[in-house]
């Protein structure tokens, strides 16, 4: 690229960004996005809408919003805005360098992904580029009980503030490779039940005797039994799904399925028990059969709550949006597809009070797109996280493109 072009371009970028900030860190606390078609997810899309952002939160959204005097107005006429995307199951930041699976410890619900999180990988920036602003990232599926995930934003200066939930979502995995998988998990829940009983007895008693010894693993499982924590299972086959549903029937914990490529085969059984499904990544990298892709629609029709996930690095995080597009291609209604990458995963991860839709009071995590949000041909123009400009296409496009 010629030097002149570069100069012209850089100045353009500066002009463009002036309205928002001079650099993504320090910026004015109040500004307005005006003119776009906004998919709030909380209601029908609003054309020619105005979004007011104050202190990183959404202060107002709608067609007839009074714009405070003197604030910067960014014209996004002709664009579409959706909430920042939420990936409910990812291994981002956990896989380099090889901190995903504590293989020798098949039962390790006490392990926490946050203790292995690697913030130095370029993946985080790539995720932002794709409009993914919140992810639930956690242990791998090499163990029966892998540990607990962390819910975190993909962008932000202050790491502490980025974390929405430090630990939670007990990750379990059934590969159906071995007959003893289910009995192993079953036995551990039985143990946890007894552990919980012991403690309850102690708490409700006069506490004269010494307290029962603490056990980190059992403590984690007890939380699930008390309904304070969610059990998330990496699961593949329909018979395994049935087995786990029966475990849920027995212990009553809150359950969510991950991947579940065959969930559609037992869609009614899943719907009956209100278990949400985090669908197999259906981004283009993974060659799932057509029957499975249509199966997602079967699940939707049965009334199962759906979320998408990337399983990064299995399919790259930055193309997370395409999962929803593919679901649309195979027959999922557009609104349902959008929910499956925004509010549904937020609810499943229990962070819907902060993210997942464009509503007053929620975090200003917004994705501005140059066209219909679900088209592959549509580029992401801008991504805001907590009201900060995290990505700008025009800035990004011309980095690192020099010829050698």
């Amino acid at each position, binding site marked *: 690229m010629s030097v002149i072009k570069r100069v012209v371009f850089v100045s353009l970028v500066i002009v463009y960004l002036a309205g928002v900030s001079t650099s993504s860190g320090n910026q004015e606390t109040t500004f307005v996005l005006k003119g776009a078609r906004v998919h709030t997810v909380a209601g029908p899309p609003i054309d020619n809408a105005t979004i007011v952002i104050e202190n990183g939160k959404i202060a107002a959204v709608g067609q007839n919003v009074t714009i405070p005097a003197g604030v910067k107005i960014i014209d996004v006429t002709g664009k579409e805005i959706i909430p920042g995307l939420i990936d409910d199951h990812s291994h981002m930041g956990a896989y380099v360098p090889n901190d995903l699976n504590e293989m020798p410890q098949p039962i390790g619900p006490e392990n926490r992904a946050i203790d292995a999180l690697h913030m130095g990988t370029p993946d985080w920036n790539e995720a932002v580029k794709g409009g993914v602003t919140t992810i639930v990232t956690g242990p791998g599926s090499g163990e029966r009980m892998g540990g607990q995930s962390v819910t975190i934003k993909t962008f932000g200066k202050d790491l502490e503030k980025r974390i929405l939930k430090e630990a939670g979502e007990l990750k379990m995995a059934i590969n159906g490779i071995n007959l003893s998988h289910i009995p192993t998990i079953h036995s551990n829940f039985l143990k946890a039940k007894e552990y919980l009983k012991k403690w309850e007895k102690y708490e409700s008693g006069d506490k004269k005797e010494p307290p029962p010894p603490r056990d980190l693993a059992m403590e984690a499982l007890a939380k699930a039994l008390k309904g304070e924590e969610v059990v998330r299972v990496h699961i593949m086959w329909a018979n395994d799904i049935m087995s786990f549903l029966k475990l849920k029937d027995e212990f009553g914990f809150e359950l969510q399925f991950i991947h579940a490529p065959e969930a559609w085969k037992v869609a009614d059984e899943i719907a009956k028990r209100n278990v949400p499904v985090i669908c197999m990544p259906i981004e283009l990298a993974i060659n799932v059969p057509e029957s499975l892709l249509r199966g997602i629609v079967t699940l939707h029709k049965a009334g199962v709550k759906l979320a998408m996930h990337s399983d990064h690095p299995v399919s790259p995080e930055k193309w997370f949006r395409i999962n929803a597009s593919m679901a649309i291609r195979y027959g999922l209604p557009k609104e349902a597809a959008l929910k499956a990458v925004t509010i549904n995963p937020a609810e499943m991860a229990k962070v819907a009070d902060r993210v997942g839709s464009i509503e007053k009071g929620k975090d200003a995590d917004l994705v501005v797109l140059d066209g219909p949000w679900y088209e592959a*041909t549509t580029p992401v123009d801008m991504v805001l996280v907590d009201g900060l400009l995290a990505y700008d296409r025009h800035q990004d496009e011309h980095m690192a493109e020099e010829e050698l």
Partner: protein
Amino acid sequence: MRQDKKKRQKQMLKKMFPFISLSFGILLLAVFAVHSAEPEVIAIKDGKILTMTGKVYEKGLVIIKNGKIDKVGKGGRIPRDAKVIDAQGKYVMPGVIDAMTYFGIRPFSRNVPQPVTPQNRIADAYYIFGDLFTGEGGIQAEAELLCGGITTVYIAPGSGQLIGGQGAVLKTNGRTYDGMVVSDPASIDMTMAYAPVGQFGAPPPPRPTRMASMALLRTTLMGAKAYAQKIEGYKGKSAEEKEKAPKPPRDLGNEALIKLLNGEIPARVEADYVDDILAAVRVAEEFGLKLIIDSGLGAYKVRGLLAEKKIPVVLGPVSHPIGFTHYNASHEVQELENERNAALLTEAGVKIALGSHSYNYGGSGKHTQGRWLLLEAALASSFGLSEEDALKAVTINAAEILGVSDRIGSLEKGKDGDVVILSGHPLKIESLVEHVIIDGLISYSREKANQ
């Protein structure tokens, strides 16, 4: 953008000529049309036709006769015996070409634990008979691939070798097994900085250095040159001399490499790092090879050079250009990855195609990622490639790079009857392939497939 317009105008002028000749053809046809005994004549009417020659017909007509395209144009008389497909409101385009796949090859059979095996032929391994150990028999087009409109694939040996062997261009359906071959050998497949594979069950040997593998490559090519000279020398002898001198023993590997040295077929070199691309260019120049760069993650960094030397690039899929190796990708590779690769190369004048590089993902798939190649093109267009160029990258440009554009890649009279009918614009997410016709055979119909 302005450049694009100019280009398009030029192309328009260029394309006028074939159009004129085409209409002549139609005239001739009308005169000489004899009622053929060949059964299948297909007429696709009223669709929006993207010919990929620059010409677009809103409500056009495509006629396929005897497996070849007989007419493409605005409209006209439909032969009485034709099977008519009404494409009203639909899009008609040439069959999609996946310029780099492992489709139809069982995962274990791709790689050989030797660095140099030019004698290996992919055409021997192409499996297109449906599921193993079951099924009806005969050629079974794979619906999971055809639903993406793929009519032709280039299949490569694995990338775990320096010289993997001879790739082939094959159709995805056909009347006979041999009839599906479009070009074989189509090229010699090589990989820079390859990661060797182990013998079944054994651990892989250590990765050789770039120095060593380049030395091996040069040695191999020099050996082939010497072999060629020996053969030529023997051929040049008189009958009497021939009687005395021993005939040089045949060598399948060197025989294949001679074709490469003669320029009959190109070398397809998988190279991602800029250094590897430059190394490939160096060797190609030294031995006078025709070169195609595969994958080319960092190709945009040397786009000027590639344009100047007219070296085409077959890029990987935009959404996962380094395939499943994303798992182990180094930061260096991740930082090299650029979604605008296709756009930048095209802008610089490098001819590109997109390939799915489809690999097997566990037991769940059959190397059919190619079915989403049009969406990969769509993604490329969201990063600056024009829609037209994006479509060309999976049709005519791919055909030209594969050296088979005389037969496929565009809708023109005389070319193979490979036609795809879509419910909407090919790059839109909701557009689905309705019909796929290969050599005049209706090979896929969505309604039937979904039953």
